[in-house]
């Protein structure tokens, strides 16, 4: 498995991958929590880091036909959701470029002043 450098996010609440604890997104990047992914509830994020894109494919979702690309965690290679590349309907245009991340694959991480407590 090729090892890549990870991006680290700075914020009070960070969502991390449940398998490998790599930072994925900030709480501020959540656009909506009421989405449904393949395996249950999912969040719509504005920006997700430490992921790589898979192949683009056309998929018929609940809201219509979309062009999506699956996203994989860089470190553990699990599929954590997908990215909307293109939306065929006008009403779904706001999703373009945004990421769906399944709730079962991410964990919420609270900072609790970790940086300060790490000092001696």
């Amino acid at each position, binding site marked *: 498995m090729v*090892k*890549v*450098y*990870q991006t*680290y996010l700075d914020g009070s609440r960070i969502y*991390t991958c*449940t*398998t*490998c*604890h*790599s930072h994925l997104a900030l709480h501020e990047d*959540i*656009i*909506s*929590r*009421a989405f449904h992914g393949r395996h249950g509830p999912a969040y719509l994020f*504005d*920006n997700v880091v430490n992921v790589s*894109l898979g192949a*683009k494919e056309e998929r018929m979702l609940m809201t219509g036909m979309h*062009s999506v*690309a699956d996203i994989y965690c860089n*470190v553990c290679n699990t599929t954590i959701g997908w*990215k909307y*590349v*293109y939306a065929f309907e006008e009403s779904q*245009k*706001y999703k*373009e*470029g945004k990421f769906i991340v399944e709730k079962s694959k991410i*964990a*919420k*991480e*609270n900072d*609790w002043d970790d940086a300060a*407590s*790490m*000092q*001696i």
Partner: protein
Amino acid sequence: MDALLAVPMFADIDLDQQLGAKSSHSPHSLPSPPISDAGFSEDGLQQVPEAALPLVENMSISEDHNSIGSSPKAKSNFDFDDLPKELRIKIFQNLAVKDLMQAAMVCRAWKQLTLDGSLWSNIDVTPYYRNITTEQLLALGVAAGGFLKIANFRGCIQLTGHSLRTLAECCPNVKVLQLKDCRTVSTPSIACFISQAHQLQVLDVSGLDSIKNHTLQAVASSCPLLRILNVAWCRNINGDGINAIAQGCKLLEHLKVNGCPRLDDATMSAIGENLPNLKRLCLASCSDLKDRALLAFLDSSHGRLTHLNIANCAKITDAVIYVIADKFTMLTHLEMAGCSLLTDDGLNHLVSHLNGIVNLDLEDLFQITDTSIREIAHHQKSLRRLCVSGCVQITDSAIINLVLRGECTDSLEQLELDNCSAITDRALTTIATHLATRKAIFSQSPSSDSSSSLFSSSPPKLNKLSSFATNSSEDSFDKVLGRKKRQLSVEVLDCNNITENGVRTALNQAAPLLQIKSFYSWNDNRRRSLADAEDNNTPPTVDLTGLRTNVRRMRYYPLTRTRRRRIQREANTVATGRSQGSSCIIS
């Protein structure tokens, strides 16, 4: 800084023989007049490397100045290299890492100086972990030697087992070790380092698969002074390793074991019994943690916990909450997101007994109703953040009561109501009106300072609170809060009954004291950022996977005008339906 003023006396003595040639450069390179400053400013030092480099070539000119420099009148410009080594190192201690690296490029003597151990007692590679090579990292570590106290190698996948073993031999005094995401390091190397790091106080190895139970046993036996341990999401450990830690590191204060499987009763009671100083415990996502185990911990613990995180431990029930309420009187941060078996009864008991909660996270506890919110409003005085997202039974009246009339009305800063379908515009507008009235009172009040008036919601209370604010040693008011303006930020994503009108009315009324995060505010930001992107002709952050072939083609042969026009025309046809201009593809 008298030492610097006394420097002209040392100027005649050549302390470092090999630097004799360079002392002639210094009258050029130093800013004038140096002695009048209190000491070397960082700017002064920055100028030296850039100025010194061209002077190395012009040796002839320097010889003239050598003669000028030796006369006592001109020697009022003192020479950095004539300072004693300890003073030079002390000056370098004020440099940032980037400046130190630049200083190391000046000359061999300076490089030797920058690699002095005392400058590297804190190696924090966070700003440059991608650029530093393994050899450089090892060189830094070895140079630091016994001075190395804080070793923060977060994200350094280039750190090898060999480097860590070398560091193990050279650096016995490490106090803070941060190895998060150093995935190339093998288990024996980590064990080797830990077995000789007897001074270790902070250890963070979260996310590493190479940590096993026997590594934790090594930690327990070699690091008795350990205070902070983070083994979150290490997939190859389980309760036995944590048990060993509990037996060995009795001074532990912060423990994070997110995602650890098989935490059984024996482990949990060992944690409770053997760690009297435990202040922060994070058991998030330990999904097979049962009531019995947590009760075992609670029964044997010493009750000094301030932060507890049991998010996503779905098997926890109210029984545990009752005991938490009775035992942990100093609890300030409590995260229970996703513990969906909890109900109002447990929560009521909790909030009525624990008075100092600052952060309460009740996301997705869908059995919670208005009763709990009213209890929170009634009892909690210092609540700053409350998250009740996903608690679909919560209605407007409870929230209004919380914000307007609750005990925490002055301290509440963040309120999250995502996915609460019973919340309507009425809540937002009432909150906005309330905050706007406060703002009006604040601007009207003549003699009180800004901090006191913001805390009053009605004129009779104003006098009482202003007397509190003048007595600054009053414990009930957070001093930090008193200094800054209080803002309430409300999050209402996915609330079906919140309309755009409601959000805008509320914002118009009470901004900037009120911030509302909703789909509409995000949409505004998005439109604004897209408009900006169009104006600046920069490509917005839309993935161009479909257009990547065009870019690649352009790279391999030069773009003539006809080809460029053709590509633009192609891109235009592909990009119908998108709102950006075609120029973004070329740039």
